[in-house]
């Protein structure tokens, strides 16, 4: 039983790390602001939730898990809101999306 939980948490931690790295590589490599915002959402949702799930499996049922759940709820509320406000402000500002209709 213990081994199963360890394996599960290991898998979710690894998957979360991979998503984290992928998201931040996208943050560097993508060409304009809005696509970078898109890449960041991978970090904020998938990477974050997977790593936190791994930690929760490790912690078991305790106060730590409650705090972790609180953090996850907090991030899930704030991070899309911040991204939304950011995109809106950028669109109001001078940044225009890099549109490519020709398909290159």
């Amino acid at each position: 039983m213990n081994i199963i939980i360890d394996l599960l948490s290991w898998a979710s931690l690894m998957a979360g790390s991979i998503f984290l790295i992928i998201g931040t590589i996208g943050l560097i490599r993508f060409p304009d602001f809005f696509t970078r915002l898109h890449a960041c959402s991978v970090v904020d949702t998938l990477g974050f939730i997977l790593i936190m799930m791994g930690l929760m499996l490790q912690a078991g049922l305790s106060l730590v898990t409650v705090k972790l759940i609180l953090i996850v709820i907090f991030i899930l509320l704030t991070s899309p809101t911040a991204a939304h406000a950011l995109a809106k402000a950028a669109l109001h500002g001078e940044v225009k999306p890099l549109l490519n209709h020709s398909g290159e």
Partner: protein
Amino acid sequence: MEHHLVLRVVAKLLIPMILIFALYVQFHGDYGPGGGFQAGVIFASAFILYSLIFGIENARSVISFNLLRILSALGLLLYLGVGISALIFGGNFLDYNVLASNPLSGQHIGILLIELGVGLTVAAVMTMTFFVFSRP
């Protein structure tokens, strides 16, 4: 920020959580990390978030400027008052052992009151500074 509907709704959800968390930090400072100073800052940041999203005039109608001034002085006075009450009960200045029948609970009460004073002063001064700095 009239048209930021998402922000307003999320802020309405978040601000009570932040205030509860600040109270937790304030009174849990004996057991975990935290204490008066940090709790005061978190408290102030809740008010700052409110005034960012709903406008500083509304924030000032929630918590008026005179109240902030009174609170900031009240925190320091609470601190001093604990010290002087220790004097009255027959100990040294800021010696909490005499505040209750046994020294340990006396220390507990003293530390709790003092952290409360620190938190009040810090929260009031931070909010006041923000109001003054970013007046429209």
